[in-house]
């Protein structure tokens, strides 16, 4: 089943006085199946983050459509967009984006509270989730009291608590050391294995090599894609690496 459909997505930023315009996305099309673990790779400035923002409906495309389960996201009125995002999408960011004012527990519960769920339901969902992510012991601490890896796992828990259709991650390992990165990637593997659809934007080959499919974008356009198939992670890593070399070399054919 196709979960997310992206059709000819274009995004042009025009400076306020209409002088220069920058084309961040130049017609991107792809589809994500339910349960798929997809990584989007590209250099800095290639349009990855713009793509994610448009997919997340944090930004509107200039041209093109994003459909979630066949429903056009452009048809969702501005007012319901926040609720739509909350109910369907979960986010993990490079800088964690946790709120200092909230304890770890409250940070995780935030989307549920915003959705108006009763407190009992929160407790029921929070416990097993926190245990699974290894943050059951630190629920009463505050973000400044825990390590980067723990913060990111908190962010993952926050993204998962409303059982979203897709988890979107923007450079989730970007601010973590290698051990914390490995742990986080293992968590993503587990999620994918359990059938969770994951869309990750990254420029780390290692992170991408955990995905089932890697999309490469360059200058705002889809350049290439690789399926992992039956490859081992190490082999897939090699293939991604080779593709990147090609990408950097500027070639257009493989």
């Amino acid at each position: 089943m196709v979960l997310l459909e992206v059709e000819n997505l274009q995004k042009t930023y025009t400076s306020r006085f209409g002088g220069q315009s920058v084309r961040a996305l130049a017609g991107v099309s792809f589809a994500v199946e339910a349960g798929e673990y997809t990584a989007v790779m590209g250099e800095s400035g290639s349009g990855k983050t713009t793509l994610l923002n448009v997919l997340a409906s944090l930004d509107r495309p200039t041209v093109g459509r994003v459909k979630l389960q066949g429903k056009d996201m452009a048809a969702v009125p501005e007012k319901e967009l926040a609720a739509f995002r909350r109910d369907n999408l979960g986010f993990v960011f490079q800088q964690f984006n946790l709120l200092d004012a909230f304890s770890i527990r409250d940070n995780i519960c935030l989307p549920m509270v915003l959705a108006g769920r009763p407190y009992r339901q929160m407790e029921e969902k929070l416990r097993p989730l926190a245990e699974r992510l290894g943050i059951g012991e630190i629920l009463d601490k505050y973000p400044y009291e825990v390590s980067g890896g723990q913060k990111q796992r908190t962010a993952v828990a926050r993204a998962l608590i409303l059982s979203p259709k897709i988890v979107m991650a923007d450079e989730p390992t970007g601010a973590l050391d290698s051990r914390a990165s490995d742990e986080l990637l293992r968590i993503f593997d587990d999620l994918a294995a359990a059938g969770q659809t994951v869309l990750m934007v990254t420029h780390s080959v290692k992170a991408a090599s955990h995905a089932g499919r890697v999309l490469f974008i360059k200058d705002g356009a889809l350049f290439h894609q690789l399926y992992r198939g039956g490859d081992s992670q190490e082999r897939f890593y090699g293939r991604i690496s080779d593709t990147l070399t090609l990408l950097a070399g500027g070639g257009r054919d493989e």
Partner: protein
Amino acid sequence: MNKRFYPRFAWDCMRKNRRFYTPYLTTVMGAAAGFYMLATTADPCGLADAGDVRVIMQVCTAVLGLVCAGFLLYTNGFLMRQRGREFGLYSVLGMTRENLARLMLWESVYTLLIGLGGGLFLGALFDRLLLLLLARLMGAALTGPVLYVRCMVLTAGVFGAILLLIFAVNAVRVGLMRPVDLITSQSAGNKAPKARWLIAGAGLILVGAGYVIAIGRPTLMQAVETEDILWFFIAVLLVILGTFALFLAGTVTGLMLLRRWKGYYYKTRHFIAVSGLIHRMGRNAAGLAIICVLSTAVLVMVSSTVSLYAGLESNVRQSCPRDVMCEFTSGAQTDWDELLDGAVDEIRAAGYHPQNTVRYCFWECRWDQNGAGGDMVFLDAAGYETITGRKISLKPGQILTTWPEDTLSVLDMELDAAGHLEPDDPAAVYLGLAGTDSQYGRQGTLDGRHLAVAGADTIEQVRRGLQSCLEAGSDASLAFGTYVDHLIDFDLPAGEDTHACRVLVEDHVVKHFRPLETAFGSGCRDAGTIRASLMANYGSLLFLGLFLGALFLGGAALLIYYKQLSEGYEDRSRFAVLEQVGMDAGMARKSIRSQILLVFFLPLLTAFCHTAAAFPLVDRMLGIWGMYDTGVFALCTLASAAVFTALYGAVYALTARTYTKIVRE
């Protein structure tokens, strides 16, 4: 390193930190200008004949110096926190502590030069205007020099010392820190506050104790005493300490309690609000407490001094119902009518136009015999008639009295009451017996003192009776009035000098008695003299109230600005996150906006609370200065609160624009 490096570098640093330095320099300037101007009002070269006023001004100047020191230390702390990262960077780039200290020293020098120079300039510019205002309020003439060199030196000394202290504090603070601490010091403020039951409880107790004193003393103690002032300051101290404790720990602890209540806390609206407030209160507690204390000070000072000034005329009328009031007494047999007629003729000849003339005899006595005694004020029937316009006829031995019984016995004499008077009879009010005298409390009690109206002959008879009883060596005692007083009171048209006129009357009567070897006494007063002396007092107090009120308001405004600045930087990132996790932007903005409103108006609400609690005690203290009209004071308090709220709101609205600008950046 180049000798000129530090001066130039320090200057660059200050320019780069304009957003934080400008308000700081403005504070130093404003404080120095205010200090200088207040010091000039206390300078002996200044206003003539203002002895008492000068002492008050000197005390206030000293207090203002201390307040300035505290306030500058606090705002400097804010400035340094904002610059922690910058200093950290410098030290990572290889500046030693000595280097940093030298940088800060130069910055202090510039601050002193700009702040003190600007302050003295502004002070000198507006000082004359301010002194003119003071002179006007006091009804005095403006004298003294344009520039007060002595005060300038004093101001320079005080602010030099304050800035040196601040420099020392900063140097120690930076010296104790490692570069890493400096870099992270900004985010250290983000620690979540903890519930502190002990401090919160202490705060409640302190504020409660202050309130009990302020409200309880006037209710329990009948008489106004000078001790009230002492108690007032004790209450002020308790409430200030309590306010700090409550803001530092109370609000956070209370909110924490709410947070424990899961069913309440985990609701969309409460969730964001409670956590946000805990966080904000934790970081802004001290600043908010200062804003609250300053606001309360402004409200109490302005309302009390304005009401003193507003009640000036009624106060004059209470102690002096007619413009000129002369009272004479003598043992000599004199035709008083003729004598006073002569006095009136003389002042008429001198060009005065006495009106509403009242003449009466008045005899005040207190006697005591084996515990049986009385305290009576006798007024002659003719005088009663001129004062009240009420015609009465009394037989000899008859009286009209406030004494509740039908007969009044004065030693062995019996006086019959022909009728009774209310305690607030117009004559009693006119003679000052109707309980507005500070000694007798404010409830209008006569405290055992009664008015009796009788014929002049009857009064003289009673007087003789008492006198002979005493002379016969009885064991009775008599206090007051050996002889009956003869009085003449009148008004003058506006513009005629009541004091000069009074002196004429007094001199005329005295001249008559001078050749006689006889007992003679006189007690004269006039509205003009009383008004002038009250004006000097009330005017200087009003001046202080308005001046310090304006300064404190400025201080509060500055703190609000600083707080908006720091909240703005914090909220910028908070908006983004809330939007990402699925709160729509409008709702997030509205929720944060309302939290900010609550945070900034909490001090104002608390200040209203404090002012209301202080009302009864301040109301009584005003009595010490001769102001008894609670209604006027209540009105002034409400008016001050309204004006202050408007100004506070304006300050808030203006500074909120800075906040919005930062958040939208």
